């Protein structure tokens, strides 16, 4: 019996020692199949495993795909790190340019427009017409983010494929004053002059009426205390409450205006995107 157990143990251990796990090639093929099927989140650990076992000579394609997986999962910092590695490991010039575009997309999505601009300006001047259009599109987004709307308009115009789309984009950017409306400073000043006016100007009518009634109530309370007691009493009772909601009111007015302005810009930007996408 002892001999049987001993024999079983020895054979199991030797079997386990020699039984092959998946090879790096198989892991890579598995990762590739997941990547091609669009399951980038699942492909990421398989690519990371591949990269771990073939380091330090990880090829640019694996690095690029790891970066793509991070990008699609929204981890832009990691994506940037791997696009950087991929860029320096890459020998193919056209893929290098594509990596630069991906890096700028990461910067754009994380609202680092100046870094995106740096990446786009590092591309060589003479590009193929297709890449040139792509660069113009990215530069358009970058200048839009940097709030230089006339520059953004001219780049978006260059990115459009046909003259009709170019005309549409030109019409959108013809008057750039509406990109700056509603004005947060004006909203704030309006609420300083008349509580609630800034909110109404920013399109938040109910909030404006609410602010007017609330601050009006504390003003009324102040006058009432003055009439029944003394101005000093009003100073210590009604004024702090009035100050709190008066100040909150004009801060909110500026916030509402900023939010509304961002909403307007986002709508205009989406109009531009629709024009550019429709010509493809």
């Amino acid at each position, binding site marked *: 019996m002892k001999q049987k157990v001993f024999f079983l143990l020895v054979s199991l251990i030797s079997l386990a020692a020699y039984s092959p796990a998946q090879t790096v090639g198989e892991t890579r093929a598995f990762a590739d199949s997941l990547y091609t099927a669009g399951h980038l989140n699942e492909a990421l650990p398989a690519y990371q495993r591949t990269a771990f076992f073939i380091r330090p000579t990880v090829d640019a394609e694996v690095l690029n795909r790891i970066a793509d997986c991070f990008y699609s999962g929204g981890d832009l910092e990691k994506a940037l790190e791997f696009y950087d590695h991929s860029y320096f490991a890459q020998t193919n010039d056209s893929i290098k340019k594509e990596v630069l575009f991906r890096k700028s997309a990461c910067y754009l*999505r994380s609202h680092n427009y100046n870094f995106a601009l740096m990446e786009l300006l590092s591309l060589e001047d003479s590009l193929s017409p297709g890449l040139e259009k792509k660069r113009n599109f990215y530069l358009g987004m970058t200048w839009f983010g940097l709030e230089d709307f006339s520059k953004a308009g001219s780049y978006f115009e260059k990115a459009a494929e046909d003259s009709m789309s170019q005309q549409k984009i030109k019409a959108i950017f013809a008057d750039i004053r509406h990109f700056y409306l509603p004005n947060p400073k004006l909203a704030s000043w309006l609420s300083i002059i008349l509580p609630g006016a800034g909110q109404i100007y920013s399109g938040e009518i109910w909030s404006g009426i609410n602010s007017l009634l609330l601050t009006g109530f504390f003003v009324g309370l102040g006058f009432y205390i003055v009439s029944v007691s003394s101005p000093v009493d009003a100073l210590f009772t009604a004024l702090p409450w009035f100050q709190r*909601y008066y100040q909150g009111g004009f801060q909110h007015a500026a916030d509402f205006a900023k*939010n509304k302005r*961002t909403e307007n810009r986002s709508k205009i930007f989406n109009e531009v995107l629709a024009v*550019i996408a429709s010509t493809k």
Partner: protein
Amino acid sequence: MKWKTIASIFIILPAFACNLHSQTPDEVRSFSKLFKPDENKPDYSLKIDPGNEFKLVLTSGFAFYKTFVSSQDGVKCTFYPSCSVYALNTIKTNSLIGVLDAIDRLTRCNGISPEKYHIHEPSQRFYDPVEKIRH
């Protein structure tokens, strides 16, 4: 024959090159949320809990305060969730003991003990959620 072939190559190649590596419609549309405003707006609408008379009165009072008064205030509370939301939730969770818990929270709302709390990243305020009190 030869010039025809050359001419077609010259016509086809630039047309092909124009679309090569140009941005695709999907790529263009993928940027549609790039300039979207921040969705993290404070929610002032709180549900009134008609569980019993005590809860109904308190939650209605808080809902009124949050909708018409607190919404007009600047960011004054040092905690996330704010003291009024905390009070509402602790009363819902801990009933009468929740009232004492809410008073305790108000006495702590001064920012002089930052080492005792984690920071709530989106609001950049001290994180102090409601917990079930064991008694």
